[in-house]
Structure formats: structure tokens, C-alpha cells
């Protein structure tokens, strides 16, 4: 998933705010190339692992490409046009894009709001605070394979633990958490929140710790209630952090793969309703070795995400200094 990406961005984000604080103290003159030299190590990695593969993917997307077959005929934009042709496989691709969209729409709000509440609580001083911080973060250290297998057995409609306990308290015990709608989405979103909420909570927590205490004191002096403090001090103070959390969560959700692959199966039960875009693209490129059309799909998905990301920055980043 986007884990490594997010960690990296966080680190550079923190560095940036620290750098900004330092500049206020008094800027120093530096050589023209100094900033570029500092960026060089990252740019090399970026070039090798992001820019070059992207260009290569675009080139591949213009061909019928199987790296082992001698003929890789150039097909121009055919791979892209095919996606809009209304053929059966194009229909399946768009169905998988819709599945990704649904997962993103259902999972982003809880993944943005729930960790905020957790962070606010964990920001208070109370005995065992560090223990609970660790508890909420703990699931995040698990790999998707562990989480997937774990939840597949918890959610299983017939032999699962969740339905068993629902039955014990007199609720329906035959809910198809892994192969019925909308239950499968609820299950997938639920397990994702359990798994990754801790990461977002830690980011929020860092943001909360960055809000100056005197702002709260000033608000209290002015007679602001707890809610008013939250609304007018905490939330504005968290704006840049929230922008980061929203952006990263949208990207992570749009790249969802492991959870449905392991819990609802490779074809995304029921039918292929929970087969996401990345699952479909993976099958196309690495299962069927149709790398040209898989690349076209990837580029289309990436473009859509880039547009959403830009929109997101405009919307939330507007009042950011």
C-alpha cells in the first residue's frame, strides 16, 4: 500500500515545518545549487522508482506488450480507446473502477474522522495514555496478509466469529460479510479502519502537539467552551495535517488490493462486485501478461487520482499559509 510513501511524506512534512520555523529566526545566504544538492538524493530515487517506470509504462501502454513475445506491435492509443469501447472487458474494468470508487467513498470519511477523535482523546493526560496509544497503533504494524486472513475468518458468514457472537445476543447470525452486498463493503471498510486508523491518529496526534498551548489559554480567557475550543482552535490548527491525512487516505483507499483479494477472493465476491481496479489491473498485466492494456488502465487510474489530489489541495489547502 502507500505506507512507505506516507512515511516519507510525513518526515519531509515535519522537516519542512521545522525549516520554516528556522527561517523565521533569521535566513542565511546559501549557494545557488545548495537546495538542489540537498534534493539530489531524493530526486535520484524518485527518478529511478517513479519517473522512469511511469514513462516506461506510458510507452508500454501504446503497444500490445508481452515482454516474452517477439512481437510487441505498436497500437497507438488503441489500448485507451478500447477502455471506452463498451466491450465486455472494458465493462469489467469500469466495474472494478466503480468498486474502487465505492471503497474510497465508504472508507475515507471514517478513516479521517475516527482517528481524529482517537487522537483528541489520546492527547489528554491520563494514566496509561502511552499504553492506549500503542494499542491503537498496533494493528498498523501487521502486514496485509495477516490482517486479511485474520478478518476472513472473523467475518466468515457461516463459520465466522462475528456472526457467532451476533447470534448469541439474538441478532441475525447469517450476515454474508464476505460475499453479500452491502455487507462485504461494511466488512472491508471496518477491517481497514481497524488496521490503519492508528496511523492517521498518530499523524493527528503530532498535529495536536504542534498547536501552541497559549491559543487554548487565550480561548479559555475569552470564555470559550470545550467545543468552541475544538471548533475554533483545534480544527484550524490541524488544517495542514488534515489535508495530508485526507490526501494520503484517498490514495491508500484508491489503491486497495490486499483486503478484498484475501477476504472476498480474487474475483471479488459476490460475483465480481468487490474486485477493485488494482486487482483487475494486476490480473490483466501479471496474470494475462497483457501489459499494454494494463499500463493504459494504470495510467488512467493514476490520472484520475492526480486530478482528485489537485482538487483536494485546492479545497483544503486554500487558507493554508
Amino acid at each position, binding site marked *: 500500500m502507500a505506507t512507505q510513501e506516507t512515511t516519507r511524506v510525513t518526515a519531509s512534512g515535519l522537516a519542512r515545518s521545522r525549516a520554516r520555523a528556522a527561517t523565521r529566526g533569521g535566513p542565511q545566504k546559501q549557494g545557488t545549487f545548495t537546495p538542489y544538492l540537498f534534493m539530489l538524493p531524493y530526486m535520484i530515487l524518485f527518478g529511478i522508482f517513479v519517473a522512469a517506470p511511469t514513462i516506461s509504462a506510458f510507452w508500454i501502454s501504446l503497444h500490445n506488450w508481452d515482454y516474452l*513475445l517477439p512481437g510487441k506491435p505498436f497500437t497507438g492509443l488503441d489500448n485507451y480507446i478500447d477502455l471506452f469501447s463498451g466491450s465486455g472487458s472494458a465493462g*469489467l474494468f469500469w466495474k472494478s473502477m466503480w468498486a474502487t470508487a465505492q471503497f474510497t467513498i465508504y472508507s475515507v470519511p471514517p478513516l479521517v474522522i475516527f482517528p481524529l477523535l482517537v487522537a483528541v482523546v489520546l492527547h489528554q493526560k491520563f494514566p496509561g495514555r502511552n499504553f492506549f496509544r500503542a494499542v491503537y497503533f498496533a494493528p498498523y504494524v501487521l502486514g496485509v496478509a495477516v490482517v486479511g486472513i485474520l478478518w476472513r475468518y472473523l467475518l466468515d458468514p457461516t463459520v465466522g466469529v462475528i456472526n457467532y457472537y451476533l447470534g448469541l445476543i439474538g441478532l441475525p447470525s447469517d450476515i454474508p460479510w464476505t460475499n453479500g452486498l452491502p455487507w462485504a463493503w461494511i466488512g472491508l471498510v471496518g477491517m481497514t479502519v481497524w488496521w490503519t486508523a492508528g496511523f492517521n491518529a498518530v499523524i493527528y496526534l503530532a498535529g495536536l502537539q504542534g498547536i501552541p498551548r497559549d491559543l487554548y489559554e487565550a480561548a479559555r480567557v475569552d470564555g470559550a467552551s470545550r467545543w468552541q475550543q475544538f471548533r475554533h482552535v483545534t480544527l484550524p490548527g490541524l488544517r495542514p495535517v488534515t489535508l495530508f491525512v485526507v490526501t494520503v487516505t484517498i490514495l491508500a483507499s484508491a489503491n486497495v488490493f490486499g483486503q478484498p*483479494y484475501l477476504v472476498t477472493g480474487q474475483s471479488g*465476491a459476490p*460475483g465480481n462486485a468487490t474486485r477493485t481496479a488494482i486487482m483487475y489491473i494486476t490480473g490483466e498485466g501479471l496474470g494475462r501478461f497483457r501489459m499494454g492494456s494494463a499500463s493504459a488502465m*494504470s495510467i488512467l487510474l493514476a490520472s484520475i487520482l492526480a486530478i482528485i489530489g489537485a482538487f483536494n489541495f485546492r479545497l483544503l489547502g486554500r487558507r493554508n499559509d
Partner: protein
Amino acid sequence: MSGDRARRRGLTRRDFLVAGGGATAGLILASCGSGPEGNPAVSGSTSGGTGAKYEGPNVSLAFWNGFTGGDGPFMKDLVTQFNSETDNIEVKMSVQEWADYYVKVPQAVASGSGPDVGIMHINQLATNAARTVILPLDDVAQTLELQEDDFAPIVWNGGTYNGQRYGIPLDTHPLGFYYNKKVMEQGGLDPESPPATGDDYLAALEDLKSKGIEGHWVSPFLFLGGLQWQSLLWQNGGELYNSEGTAATFNSEQGVAAMTWLVDLVKNGYSPANVGQDADTIAFQNDKNAFNWNGIWMINAFKEIKSLDWGVTQIPQIGSEKAAWASSHNFVIMNKEGQDPNKIDASKVFIKWVIDHSVDWAKAGQVPADNSVRTSQEFAALEEQSAFAEQLPYVHFPPPIPGIGDIDVILETAVSEAVLLKKEPADALNDAASTADETLQENAEKYGTG
């Protein structure tokens, strides 16, 4: 369950836990592939040693396979034994998930760093032959003096593509009929005589139902619902595809009847609705499910559960003829550029040795492909495996068409939609057939086999 999981992966493959980066990573690697130029497959360059003996300089062979389950240690033991008996060949076995294996091997072979010898499922041979990942082995079969008479015909013939042999069959692993004796007794059935015909089968399920037992849990996944449906389709005299492999025929009357039979088990209360992945097998192990058509690879897994009282026999004949789904592991020799001929000779010796010792492999839960091994006293002593072997005359494999594995996920969708009662069996299969037709056409075009 690990054996089952491993095998599931093997046959359905497409598991890429590296998610987000997976597709891109593949593409990076893809763009580095050297392609099949200078492909020795064209000139058929496996000729050389006799396979009976290797007398060249010391060589080390990389042997890759996907035996991640309970079968892994059995193969490991065979390799260790081979290494200790052979002075100048050292085999190094490397195991990974089948899903990763089928993605990695072509890339590794193309870059010249891959395995020298490996195992592939029978439905993967045509694809990998067409993609020049593996070498034709006709001369290997000749020098090893392996011929059709030595093997079960279906397995032997399944290893060919375009008139050439690409796989040396090691085993067959069919679907069989496991029955839980404890649950049968609870349902008032004789645990020593499992039903063998369609009428008996439904009567037994009715008896179980009257005792509140759902007797045949139907899985809405390729494993096992899809394999059960394919077995029934063949029992009805149907076929999955036309003989050229260019069009799907699984939505025929026979295919629809097969699916309807399974769906009716759910509708009539012989199976719970919405069975989860592997839940049918778990329920069988927990004495909740009486009948489970499952693969031979479950023998050792079930044996490990001491409280489980079970038996296994041939799949009951529901349709007009006998039939059962099966797959097969085959030895393949990789088409590495500039491969050392000594390694190819050594590979032949290794393959021949393992085939000769395949009764030890049978213990892992397999039916040996080799006739002399299969008819041996030692194999007859393996009661469960022998029960599966009875089915050999009428097991079915997917046809040897490149890219045929691509259809698995389409079949799974149809099984899912029908068994979960989202679509009528005929609608689910018709929809799948039109998608499959498109895929088969694309593959025929891509591999030039149309």
C-alpha cells in the same frame, strides 16, 4: 488447511500482496526482459545425455516449485536423497507460492538467472510453451525412455502443445468425495456406504436434512464450487470449450444443468447460503458438513485431525457418465539463454530419478503418473490415494491452449453469482461465456493460435 491454500493459489494464482506497487514493479521488470531472441526452443536444443547417467563436471541445479503446503517436505526429502546418492549433481530446491512462481519464473528465465528445472501445473504448460519459458522435451522423453505406455494416457497427452511435449508428468491430483462418518451416523446413514448415484446422493442429503444437518456445503468459489461444477458438467457430457479452444461451451445445456444441480442444493436447504472461502472444508473438519468434494491434497491435512472420522471415495455419478476434475504436476526444463548443456543433461537425470521414486511423492497426497509406480504394492498400501487413482480413466483437464488459466477468474465469477443466488444459473453462465469468448479470441490473436 495449508495444503489446500497452497494448491488453491497454485491453480488460481494472481496473488500479489505487494499491491499498489505490484503492477508497476512488474512493468519495470517487464521492460527489462530480453525476449525470446536466440531461443533454443526453436532449434530444440535439449538433446545430449541419456538421462540414465550424468558423467560431466559437477553442476548445481536450481529447482523451483510451489510446494509451500504439506507436500513441500516430501519433495525436500526426495531432493536430499537424490543429492546424497549423486556425486556430481547438486539440486538446490527453492519454494514459493504458486501465484508468485508463475509470475516470477518467466521473468527470471528471460533474464537468464532463473531456475534450471521446475514444476508446472498441466494447465500452465501451453501458456509457458507459447511464451517460450520452457523447452520442448520430446527428446528428453525419448532418452529417458518414457512413453505413453508408462503413463496414464490422459496425463501423458495433456503435457503436449502444438505437437510437442513440454512436461514430464509427475502426478495427478483429482477431486474426490470425502465423507464425514460421524455426521453420516448422526443423519442415520451407513457411514461405510457413501452414496454413489445422484438419486442416492439426494436421498442421503434429505435424511441429513431431516436431522437438521446441511450435508453438502456449496462453495461459491472456484475452489471448490467451481471444480465441483466442472466435474458435473463433464458428467453430463458437456465440455468447457470448443475443440479449437476459441469459444466457450460451458454455458451449454449440460453446463447449466450442472450449475442448477449445485444451486438447488442451496435452494433445498442441503447447503447454507453464502458459504465463505474454505468454510465448506472447515465445517467438514468440525463435523458440521457431511460431504465434501475436495482435492487429493487434503488427505494429510484431514489425517492430522485426530478427532475426525472420515473416508474418501470416487465422486458420485450424478450425470450420465463418470467424470472428475483433476490437475497434474509436470517437470519442465527452463529455456534459459545460453544454458550450459551439462545442466540440461543433469536435469534429465534428476527428473528420471524423481519419477522413479514417485511413490514417496504419492505419500504427500498425489497419484503418481508413472504406471509402474501406480500399480506397485507400495502404492496400493496408500488406501486413500488408491481410491483417488480409481478415477484416473475418466478425469478431465483443461485443454492445452495458451492463456487458458485466464478463464478461471471468469468461471469463478459465474459460480459466485449462481451459487450466491444473484443470477439464474443460465444467465450467470451466458454472461461468463461472452466474456470468456472475448478473452479466448484475444489470446488466440496474441499467441497466434486462432
